[in-house]
């Protein structure tokens, strides 16, 4: 079936509309967003919704404003919140999902029913989940009233309105912190490369680490992003939203892990038993290593969901609660409520970059192997 047969032309013709649509709606629109993010469209409210607005190119000024501008503290808090949210959301989903899958793998009675119960929140929208949990987490609501069921006093924790934050750090120290973390990672890479006997990689990694550390020690302390210290941390009001998100999505990790567990051949377990492995030993040395790739897949899928999440927050604590807000929500409000399109586009672009860090290596690794014999 070589050459340009009629059938091949048809297959191209069938794909063409979709490819064009994706090219425009994904890549074209991304390019357009990036361009808009470098203009001043909407920074002057009078021009925002004008039929023929005056738009000027202003380079990276919007980005600079987001990271260092006096008025954009909300965005910086949101970035920090996203990191904490993502970490706890992924940990929660992986932990609960794995636990449930391990239990279900032991063939309890009524397995199908249990599975249905653990998975049903997946079929709801974040808006529905958010509405339900918003009610449960009201100051005098279901969760805070729960102790009274056992004769206790109602709790008074302000689930969605707490303004308390823990693990605070000064935004001014962000360059220092980032450089230190990257340097530590590079040192680990260097040590590993040394052990593996890869001299070039050892050298490059060690050199980069040294440069970063030097920068962190001598340059970064004098670098001030903002005139005054600006503390950001993990806001306790996020805890409720994380619980609701885990409630909704841990069934997904359960399904993934269960599929993985059921895919482990029985002979492998038998063999481990013959070799004298106990239950614990078998999990540690046979089953968990086999589940590692699933954990990675799940982390990537959950990670990108978490970076984009905003409808859950919108439904749970409303659009105007700065303590629980996330960049994805801010983008929507900035663009479509305040009509600051350029600033909104800049936030959208930053989100895209964050997600791309997670997704591009993943897609590349999934498809690199195949392309060779296409």
């Amino acid at each position, binding site marked *: 079936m070589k050459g340009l047969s009629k059938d091949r032309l048809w*297959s*191209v013709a069938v*794909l063409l*509309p*979709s490819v064009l*649509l994706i090219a425009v709606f994904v890549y074209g629109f991304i390019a357009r967003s990036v361009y808009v993010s470098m203009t001043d469209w909407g920074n002057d409210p009078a021009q925002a919704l004008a039929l023929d607005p005056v738009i000027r190119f202003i380079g990276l000024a919007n980005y600079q404003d987001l990271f260092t501008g006096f008025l954009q503290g909300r965005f910086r808090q949101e970035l920090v919140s996203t990191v904490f949210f993502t970490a706890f959301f992924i940990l929660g989903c992986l932990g609960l999902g794995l636990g449930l899958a391990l239990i279900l793998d032991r063939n*309890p009675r009524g397995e199908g029913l249990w599975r249905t119960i653990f998975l049903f929140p997946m079929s709801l929208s974040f808006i529905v989940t958010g509405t*339900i949990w918003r009610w449960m987490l009201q100051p005098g609501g*279901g969760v805070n009233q729960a102790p009274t069921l056992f004769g206790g006093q109602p709790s008074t924790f302000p689930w969605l309105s707490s303004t308390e934050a823990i693990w605070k750090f000064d935004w001014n120290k962000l360059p220092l912190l980032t450089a230190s973390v990257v340097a530590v990672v590079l040192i680990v890479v260097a040590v590993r490369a040394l052990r593996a006997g890869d001299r070039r990689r050892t050298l490059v990694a060690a050199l980069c680490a040294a440069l970063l550390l030097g920068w962190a020690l001598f340059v970064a302390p004098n670098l001030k992003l903002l005139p005054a210290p600006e503390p950001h941390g993990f806001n306790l009001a996020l805890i409720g939203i994380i619980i609701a998100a885990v409630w909704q999505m841990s069934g997904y990790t359960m399904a993934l892990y269960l599929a993985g567990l059921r895919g482990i051949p029985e002979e492998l377990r038998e063999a481990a038993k013959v070799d004298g492995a106990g239950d614990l030993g078998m999990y540690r040395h046979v089953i968990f290593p086999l589940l590692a790739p699933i954990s990675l897949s799940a982390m990537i899928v959950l990670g990108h969901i978490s970076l984009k999440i*905003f409808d859950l927050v919108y439904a749970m604590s409303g659009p105007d609660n700065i303590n629980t807000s996330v960049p994805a929500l801010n983008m929507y409000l900035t663009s479509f409520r305040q009509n600051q399109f350029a600033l909104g586009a800049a936030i959208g672009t930053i989100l895209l970059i964050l997600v791309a860090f997670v997704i591009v290596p993943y897609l590349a690794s999934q498809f690199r192997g195949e392309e060779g014999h296409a």
Partner: protein
Amino acid sequence: MTTTLPSHTAPAAAPRKPLRPGRVLMYALLVLAALFFLIPVYLLFATALKSPDAIAEATTWHWPSVLNWGSFRDAWAKIGGNVLNSVFLAVVATLFSALLGSLNGYALSKWKFRGANTLFALMLFGMFIPYQAVLIPLFQFIKSLGLYGSIWGLILAHVVYGLPITTLIFRNFYADVPDALIEAATIDGAGFWQIYGKVIFPISIPGFVVVIIWQFTQVWNEFLFAATLTNTNSQPVTYALSQLAGGQAVSWNLPMAGAILAALPTLLVYILLGRYFVRGLLAGSVKG
């Protein structure tokens, strides 16, 4: 990755052993976990069925003494039109994306050309992007087509951004169809469309079920496009529910009843066709 959860590999169905402590612990943990997942459902129904004046903080957990089904009538009066919008939106958008996805999957898996995988990976990226990164140009584009505020603009957005996942599911589904079948058909003189119509399409029903369930759920549950591309006349139920629940003075039986109305269609699909739902779910993590 289109494998389902193999159900029940019960080891040789031995006669039930007496409960050992390990099994007791296992069931205790299962019940505990089930409580975590079901308590919100209990509170949801308990609140939806209370009359507004029976909703008080101290009696949050009580089952209503008098069932007030009127909440559903009132909620329907407020968001019923939006539910119907969602039905139309989800059905039309799902059918278009399923058809396109099936053709794409067929072309990509059975008529492979050089670079097909790279092209496909580039398409898939569209599934993962945060839509905030394309929202402003999308909004402008829909407006320039004159589709802002019409449900067709929303349908267009859902069909386009649904293409990656529907193509992915069908591509993986057709990958399991033996190439020999296609070759035999070509030798018999069948072309691209005859093979699709006579060989591929008839065996695609399970693929269509997975894709339709998946897309229907996604489109029904979506919020960002709904909030950006529509106006009062065309808003789907997710947006209407967020408005219903966002107000301060509303008594809580109303948003709870609204949440049930908004959740019912996808929940029914899941309960009736859960197996296919899980397949779509697993396909979302690309491949195995």
